[in-house]
C-alpha cells in the first residue's frame, strides 16, 4: 500500500534515483553483437558448403587459403557470440532476473554448448539453433529492460529471423 502511494507521489514530484550499482556502472549492454556473431556463423557454414561444392581441386593453395579464412571467421564469431552472452549474463543480469526467468541459466548454458558445437562442425542446423537460442536470450534481455521486441528477417546474406528492440 505504501509503495503504491509513494509511487503516485513520485509520478508527480519525480524523486531522485539512488543507484545500487554492480560492476562498472556503464549501463551499456546489448545482445546485438551476439546475434551478428551467430548470423556470421551461419553465413560461414553456407560459404564453406558452397565452396566445397563448386571446387573440384581441394589441394590448391587458393582453396586452402579461402577455406582457412572461412573457418577462422566461423571460429571467431562463435566465440564472439559466447563472449557477448557471458558478459550480459554475468554483469548485467542479477539474482532477481534469474528468479523472474527461471529458464535463463539453462538457456545461457545451451548457448555456450551450441557455440562450441558450431565451432566443431559445419552443421547448418547447429548454427541456426545457436541463433535461435541467442534470439530467445535477446527477448528476455529486452523484457528486463522494459523494451518491446519484434522478430524481423535479417537484412543480410543470411536472412534468418532476428530479435530487435522496438525503440
Amino acid at each position, binding site marked *: 500500500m*505504501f*509503495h*503504491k502511494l*509513494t*509511487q503516485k*507521489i*513520485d509520478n508527480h*514530484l519525480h*524523486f*531522485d*534515483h*539512488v*543507484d*545500487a*550499482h*554492480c*560492476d*562498472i*556502472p556503464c549501463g551499456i549492454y546489448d545482445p546485438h553483437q551476439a546475434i551478428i556473431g551467430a548470423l556470421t556463423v551461419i553465413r560461414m557454414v553456407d560459404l564453406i558448403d558452397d565452396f566445397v561444392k563448386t571446387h573440384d581441386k581441394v589441394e590448391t593453395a587458393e582453396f586452402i587459403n579461402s577455406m582457412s579464412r572461412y573457418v577462422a571467421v566461423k571460429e571467431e564469431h562463435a566465440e564472439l557470440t559466447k563472449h557477448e552472452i557471458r558478459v550480459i549474463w554475468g*554483469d548485467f543480469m*542479477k*539474482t*532477481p532476473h534469474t528468479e523472474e526467468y527461471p529458464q535463463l541459466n539453462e538457456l545461457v548454458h545451451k548457448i555456450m554448448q551450441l557455440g562450441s558445437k558450431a565451432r566443431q562442425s559445419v552443421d547448418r542446423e547447429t548454427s541456426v539453433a545457436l541463433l535461435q537460442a541467442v534470439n530467445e536470450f535477446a527477448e528476455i534481455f529486452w523484457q528486463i529492460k522494459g523494451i518491446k521486441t519484434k522478430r524481423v528477417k535479417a537484412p543480410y546474406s543470411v536472412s534468418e529471423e532476428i530479435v530487435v528492440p522496438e525503440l
Partner: protein
Amino acid sequence: MLLKFYKIRGHSLHPDFKDGDYVLAAGFPLPINKIRVGDVIVFHQPGLGTLIKRVQTVLNGGSAFDVRGTQINSTDSRDYGPVTREAIKGKVIWHIHKP
C-alpha cells in the same frame, strides 16, 4: 534537505533492497543522526552519482565509512575507498518495499 525520498535503481543491495523500492533518508546533522555499522546510507560518489550502500565499518571515529553492497560484483568501497562524512546525503530511516 533533512528528509528526502529516493527510488532505488539497481541490484547491488539485493535482496535487502530491491530495484524499484523507495527509501526515506534523513540528513539530520551528526551526532543526532549517528551512523553505525549496518546502517544504509545515501551518498554522493564523484563520477558515479548518488549511491546507496550499507556501512560495514565506521572509520576514524565517524569521519569516514567503509560501505558494501551485497553482490560479489557490487561497486562499493572496495573500488572507490571509504565514503567521507561530507559526502553523505542521509541515512535510510524508512524502507518502502516494492510488492
